[in-house]
C-alpha cells in the first residue's frame, strides 16, 4: 500500500532544480569555502566531497525562489552520518526570513532525518501544504551529532510544475 502510494507520488515528479531562480538563492550562515551551490547545483551535488557547511554555528537557512509556481512532493537531503542535518523545517512562500524569525511562524512541514534519509531516501512532504510554492525556505536547525558544523552533500527537490502561461509564447493579436 505504502509502496503503491509512494510510486503513485513519484510518477510524474521532476527534479525542480531546473526551475530554481538562481539569482535569488540565498543561504545564511554558510561557510565561504563550502557554499550552497555545492549541495544544490547539478554538477557539484553529485560529488560527495563537495559539501555545504555551516559557519558560525550549526544552523543553516536556505532560501530558494522558483521561476514559476511549483508543487513539491518530496525532498532528498544527503549528508554525512555525523554532521548531517537532523531537524529540517520547511517554509513555503515566506520571503527573506532570518534566524530571529524562524520560530515566529509555524513551518509548512518539519522533517526529522534518519540515517536512511541521509543516504538518499526521499522524505515525502505534506502534499496539501506545498501546492502553490513560489519560494521555499529550508531551515536546518541542528545536526545528527550536535556538532558545531552541519554538513550537507546534496539537496534535491522533487515535484511538478503548475500549468502557467509562458509569456514568451503569447503573440500579439492584430486588430482589424
Amino acid at each position, binding site marked *: 500500500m505504502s509502496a503503491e502510494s509512494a510510486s503513485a507520488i513519484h510518477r510524474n515528479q521532476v527534479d525542480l532544480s531546473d526551475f530554481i531562480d538562481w539569482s535569488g538563492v540565498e543561504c545564511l*550562515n554558510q561557510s565561504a569555502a563550502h557554499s550552497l551551490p555545492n549541495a544544490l547545483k547539478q554538477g557539484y551535488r553529485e560529488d560527495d566531497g563537495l559539501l555545504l557547511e555551516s559557519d*558560525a*554555528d550549526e544552523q543553516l537557512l536556505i532560501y530558494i525562489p522558483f521561476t514559476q509556481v511549483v508543487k513539491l512532493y518530496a525532498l532528498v537531503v544527503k549528508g554525512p552520518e555525523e554532521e548531517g542535518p537532523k531537524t529540517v523545517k520547511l517554509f513555503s512562500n515566506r520571503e*527573506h526570513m532570518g534566524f530571529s524569525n524562524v520560530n515566529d511562524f509555524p513551518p509548512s512541514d518539519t522533517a526529522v532525518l534518519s540515517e536512511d534519509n541521509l543516504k538518499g531516501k526521499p522524505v515525502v512532504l505534506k502534499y496539501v501544504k506545498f501546492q502553490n510554492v513560489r519560494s521555499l525556505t529550508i531551515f536546518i536547525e541542528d545536526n545528527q551529532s550536535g556538532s558545531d558544523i552541519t554538513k550537507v552533500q546534496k539537496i534535491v527537490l522533487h515535484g511538478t510544475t503548475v500549468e502557467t502561461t509562458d509569456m514568451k509564447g503569447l503573440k500579439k493579436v492584430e486588430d482589424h
Partner: protein
Amino acid sequence: MVLEATMICIDNSEWMRNGDYSPSRFQAQADAVNLICGAKTQSNPENTVGVLTMAGKGVRVLVTPTSDLGKILACMHGLEIGGEMNLAAGIQVAQLALKHRQNKKQQQRIIVFAGSPIKHDKKLLEMIGRKLKKNSVALDIVDFGEEDEGKPEKLEALLAAVNNNDTSHIVHVPPSPNALSDVLISTPIFTGDGEGGSGYAAAAAAAAAVSGFDLGVDPSLDPELALALRVSMEEERARQEAAAKKAAEEAAKPEKGGEQQPSSQDATMTEGASGSASEADNKKDDLMDDENALLQQALAMSMDDTTSGHDVRDTDMSEAATDDPDLALALQLSVQEGDKDSSGQTDMSKLLADQSFVSSIIASLPGVDPNDPSVKDLLASMQNQSQKKDEDKGPNEEEKQ
C-alpha cells in the same frame, strides 16, 4: 560599487568632550560620519545609510537607512553629549534596523565608533559577533578616544568573530593633530568600498589638507556648504589647469602654421598633375596670373624646407610617374622651375610653348576632341605667345591626331 545598507553607530557619551582630537572628539567623529555618508551614497546611488546614537538616554535611531544625504547630515546637527555608551545594545539595534531595510538586495554593514571604554566582556562581544556573521552583516570598528586596558583586544575579538572573508575591518586611531576623517580616508573603511568611494574621498582629502577652515565656513556649523565649497574649488582648479594646457598648445600652433602652408601648396601642385590633366591645364592658366608668383614663392620655400617639402614631393612624384610618363615629365619640369628662378611667367610659357607636350596633354583629356574648334581656338591663343615656328608645328600635329 557594492550595493550596501549601512548603519553608523555614534558614541555621544561624556567621554566625547575630550579635546585630544581637534577640535573635540565629538566634532572629529561628526566630521568622519559626514564623510562616510557622502562616500557611501556617492559610490552607489542606491546605497542607504542610517545613524543611531549609543549613549544618552539610551540607544536611539536618528535616521533609518536612507539614500537622502541631506537628511543624514541634518540629523547630525544638535546632537547632545551625555550618558554612557552601550555598545552591545547599539550593535543589536543597528542589526534590527538593517533587517528591516527596504531593499533586501543590499548587503548589510554596521560602522561603530568606539570612543569610550568598553564595559562588556569579551564573551558577550564574541557572541554578538557570531550573530552578526550568521546573518551576514559586516562590521567596521573605529577604535579612537579612550585608550582603555583591554579595549583593543576586546574589539579585535569582536572583529574576529564577525569577520567573514575580510569584509569587516578595524581601525585604531590614536590622538594626533590630523583630523580623524583624514586618517579614516586611507583605511579600508573607505577604500574597501571600491573605486567610487575613494574618488570622493581623495577629492575631500586634498581639499581638507590644503584648506582646513580657509573656506571661510566653519564645517561644524554648515557641513554641506563646506563640502560643496571644497568640491567646487577642486573643480575650478582642474578647469584652470585644462585651460592653461590649451593656451600652451595654441601658442605652439602658429609656429607650425607657416610650415604647413608650403606643404599644402605642394599637395595642390602635385594633385593638379596626378589628377585629371584638365586640372593641370587650368592650373597653368591660373599660374599665368598673380597666383603664379605666390606659388613660386611657396615652391621656393618648400625647396628650402628640406625635411617635409621634399618628402611630399618625392612620394607624389613617384605616384604620378607610374600613371603617365607625360605627367611625370610635367612634374619634373615644374620641379626644375622651382629650382631655377622665381619669375614663373617665362618658364610657364616655355612649357606651353612645347607644343608636343601640350597636345599630348590635351589628347589625354577625357572627352576633349583635339579637332574641336573651341579647343583649337584655345590652342591658337596660347600659341600666339610663342614663336612662329611652333605655331606651324602645332596645327600639323593636331591634324595628325
